[in-house]
């Protein structure tokens, strides 16, 4: 599979065309947090419904490229219903995955075994992004924004 096809996998395009958890939650009681990528103008708004240490519901709106939109859709699907601790762990792991060192990707999910892939589930579709360093910011925008929202709710 070429890098290009690895970037625009079917799952990505599917989430771009039919984003999950799109919409708003009344805030308050929900928590609203905004993320912005000044370089490309992408914007994401996330609504968090947190109760009893659990992310009961999450919605997102905003606009951006296919990578940022599908990444936020995939994210909402992955974190919804999880414990806050579980969410934090996933966010950290994802941002780690998206980190490129001086000489290319630090972690390349495609070299990892089945276990690893199973752990990531649909999110593994985003692993192709690391080969396009300029697009990493697109893929991580929603995740940074979510992290910021969690920190606002309960400082780490």
């Amino acid at each position: 599979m070429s890098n290009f096809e690895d970037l625009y996998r079917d799952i990505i395009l599917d989430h771009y065309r039919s984003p999950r958890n799109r919409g708003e939650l009344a805030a308050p009681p929900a928590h609203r947090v905004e993320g912005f990528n000044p370089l490309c103008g992408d914007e994401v708004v996330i609504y968090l419904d947190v109760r009893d240490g659990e992310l009961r519901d999450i919605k997102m709106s905003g606009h951006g490229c296919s990578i940022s939109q599908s990444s936020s859709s995939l994210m909402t699907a992955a974190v919804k219903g999880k414990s806050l601790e579980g969410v934090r762990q996933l966010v950290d792991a994802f941002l780690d995955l998206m980190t490129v060192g001086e000489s290319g990707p630090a972690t390349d999910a495609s070299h990892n075994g089945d276990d690893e892939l199973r752990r990531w589930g649909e999110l593994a579709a985003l692993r192709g992004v690391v080969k396009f360093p300029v697009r990493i910011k697109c893929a991580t925008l929603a995740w940074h924004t979510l992290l910021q929202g969690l920190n606002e709710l309960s400082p780490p």
Partner: protein
Amino acid sequence: MSSFNALRVRADVPELRRFVNGRRITYLDSASTSLPPRSVIEAMSRYYELRHANVHRGVFQTANEATEAYEGSRSAVARFINAPGGGDEVVFTKNTTESFNLIARSWGATHMRAGDVVLVTEMEHHANIVPWFQLRDAIGIEVRFIPVSDDFRLELRDLDALLRDVKLLSVTATSNVLGTKNPVEELARAAHARGALIAVDGAQSVAHGPTDVTKWDIDFLAFSGHKVLGPTGIGVLWTRQGVLDTMPPFLGGGGMIADVRTDGFLPAAGVARFEAGTPPIAEAVGLHAAIRYLDALGMANVSAHEDALTADALTRLSETFNGRVRVVGPCDTRERGGVISLDVAGVHPHDVAQVLDQFAVCVRPGHHCAKPLMRRFALAATARASFGPYSLRRDTDVLLEGLEAALKLFG
């Protein structure tokens, strides 16, 4: 008339032979930076191989040669833009952006007071906006914007009112997003009639058609080497002699002084006073070669060539995509240059550019350092294709092919 043959220009530019993703490069990003012909690259290499030395004050032969090369470039720039006062009006900066900062901090800080107005336009590049905000924050001037109409032109009906209290009208000759060409001569007359000066941003115009600061009757012109087939690391600020003489130094250091004591300094006379430190010598040599190259092509020829390409591209974009690809800019080629901003239905500019990269087509997605303009048209970004003298009709073929693919992938 000079001879012009775009195929020959293309053959002169090494980067255009490169293959990316299995295809020869289709370079449509000249509005960001232009690709230098071999003669420019070689002029700089030869300079470093044979006659590199620091300029001014040297007595040995290569130092004289380096000085002559540097000053020779200054004179060539002056001739190229038809500067009435010759090289004595040409300051070398590092880019267009520094040129505007120089205008703001030297001329602006000296000649403007709180309440005075600098009039720019909604279609300016940040280089011609931010320095004025900085001056506003320092001394309290007002930064006023000429609006852009729905048909992508400057809205000049109320120009006379807009010019109230204006000390400087600072405007781009050609928009780097819309492609719109502004009526520089008319604006110069209006500004001067109200006692204001006029600065022109030539970043998008100088490489694409004739420049004549005398005929235009303007006071400042700024442009960058890297956008006129020349090197990075050099820019130009031309200033009419009578204005230049009223401007204090900008950066301080070696070369810009007449004397330094432990209690103060005396600035040098002339353009030297604006060139602190070792200047971009090799870059001036490269810029000279670029200007020589453009001169040989003939700027009227370049302009005609790019106009034809633009007209063709606009027609084919509209015929092929039937509204799914919108051009954000005027459609009449008499009012515009070869900068074509695209809004592709349902496809984000980043994705457009990424798909086009698969076809080795180089276009730029983003706000193009013109955020006030993007806001004006409620756009976060566009995908921008732009022509240079080496562009050919076949570049548009590949662009259309790539746009089809993008629409298909995301449709």
